[in-house]
């Protein structure tokens, strides 16, 4: 069976005022159905830019200069912008690092979820609201009704991240891209969010592309790992193999960093 997502030779440049920076220099990547894949690497190695390029939501100075992104066989880079609206969120959904700043501060959690549900599933307002509350319960928010009517600044980081996950799941995506979703949370909340994501993945059935620089998390949740360094994938393989026998020095660095923290 062909993979859900296949990226071939993706190159992204940043066109700055007087120079061009090569942020991503030929990345190959595959995500199969119902698989959890980790994209690891230090800050600035191009992990986030790679994932943003998949649905073409890169920030302004960045441009995709080469490569192919095949989503269920469709070439994402050739599609016209309008067709992408239903794919973004509908097929590929994102969750981000700092949930509070990725939620609109002047709308309640409920309004934002309902908006996404109406937009992608073409439901009526009442049905969308019911489904919004149901989604909040699905991400284990105890007081779903209170949270539904709250603004992001009234909730804790973990709560916001749960709400954001609910919003991402609103449109039943096939691929969820999680860009360091637990980096801004404390360790106990981090464990809960990771558990939630793995459970949801089983229950709802989607593939998870998880970005992190923390290989401890990678080991816990993923089947395969891609290690990125300076815009390239320098190593990839099954999670166990990579931990057993890391080839590239950056992989060894990342593993060493995680052992070092363990010893502190």
């Amino acid at each position: 069976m062909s993979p859900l997502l296949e990226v071939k030779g993706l190159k992204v440049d940043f066109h700055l005022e007087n120079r061009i920076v090569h942020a991503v220099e030929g990345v190959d990547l595959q995500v199969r159905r119902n698989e959890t894949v980790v994209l690891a690497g230090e800050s600035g190695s191009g992990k986030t830019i790679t994932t943003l390029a998949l649905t073409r939501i890169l920030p302004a100075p960045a441009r995709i200069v080469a490569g192919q992104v095949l989503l269920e066989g469709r070439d994402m880079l050739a599609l016209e912008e309008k067709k992408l609206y239903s794919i973004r969120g509908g097929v590929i959904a994102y969750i981000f690092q700092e949930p509070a700043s990725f939620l609109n501060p002047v709308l309640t959690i409920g309004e934002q979820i309902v908006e996404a549900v109406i937009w992608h599933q073409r439901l009526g307002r009442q049905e969308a609201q019911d489904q919004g509350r149901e989604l909040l319960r699905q991400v284990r928010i105890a007081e779903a009704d209170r949270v539904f009517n709250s603004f992001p600044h009234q909730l804790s980081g973990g709560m916001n991240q749960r709400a954001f996950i609910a919003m991402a799941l609103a449109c039943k995506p096939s691929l969820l891209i999680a860009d360091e979703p637990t980096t801004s949370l404390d360790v106990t909340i981090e464990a809960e969010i990771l558990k939630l994501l793995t459970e949801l993945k089983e229950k709802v059935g989607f593939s998870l592309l998880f970005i992190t620089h923390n290989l401890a998390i990678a080991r816990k949740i993923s089947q395969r790992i891609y290690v990125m360094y300076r815009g390239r994938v320098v190593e990839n393989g099954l999670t166990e193999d990579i931990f057993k026998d890391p080839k590239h020095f950056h992989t060894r660095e990342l593993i060493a960093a995680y052992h070092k923290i363990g010893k502190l």
Partner: protein
Amino acid sequence: MKDNPYLFWGLAIILMLSATALFAPLISPFDPSSIDSQGLLMAPCARHPLGTDGLGRDLLSRMIYGARISLSVGIIAVGISILLGLILGSCAGFYGRIADALIMRFADIMLCFPTFFLILAVIAVVEPSIYNIMIVIGLTSWMGPARLIRGEILSLKEREFIQAERALGASDARIIIRHLVPNAVGPVLVNATLGIAGAILLESSLSFLGLGVQPPVPSWGNILIESKSTLGIAWWITVFPGLAILITILGFNFIAEGLKKIIG
């Protein structure tokens, strides 16, 4: 309300004035154009609390009806300018580049003309009716709001929740209307209340020059001009409309000040 006296008094003044304007036919003791045969230029007395003018019309009634003109000119003119400013400013801020350059240079050009003389020139061509005045004031005062909104949008569009919305499949129009404008509206509101005060003043000045609201329709500005010739013997015709303008402007400025405190 208690810790924001500006907003309290501002709202109190403006609500009272609005009620006066709305219920003018019920409140005013006389018809604004009926002539009292008992006397011209009567000083304030029991029958005419604010006296009568040179034609023997009750000043209080004329001012009550004048409030309708002044307030509606202020509110509608500013409504037009804010609407234009919102549309042009958000397009300039959101799309940047050529759209931004074109719109903002056009705004700069408009700002180069002294507004008052621009209005005088337009009124010289079109008929000086109350509706034309509203439209002309609106069309010549959108530049301030547009700049303000552009600035807000410029910084807001880089915020993360906008990227999150895009990742959820929102179109440009949806992002602007639903997510950017509601976040930018605070400072615009402050600007609008000040704008209303400015528009009322402008209408009074135009009417004073005889190019605004035409007699016999009473506006505060044209009551003032009629008082000019009798200033030496009938102070009340000058003082009371002047005070009314002063208090109204003060009221709107208080509201603006109070809103500024709330918005921070």
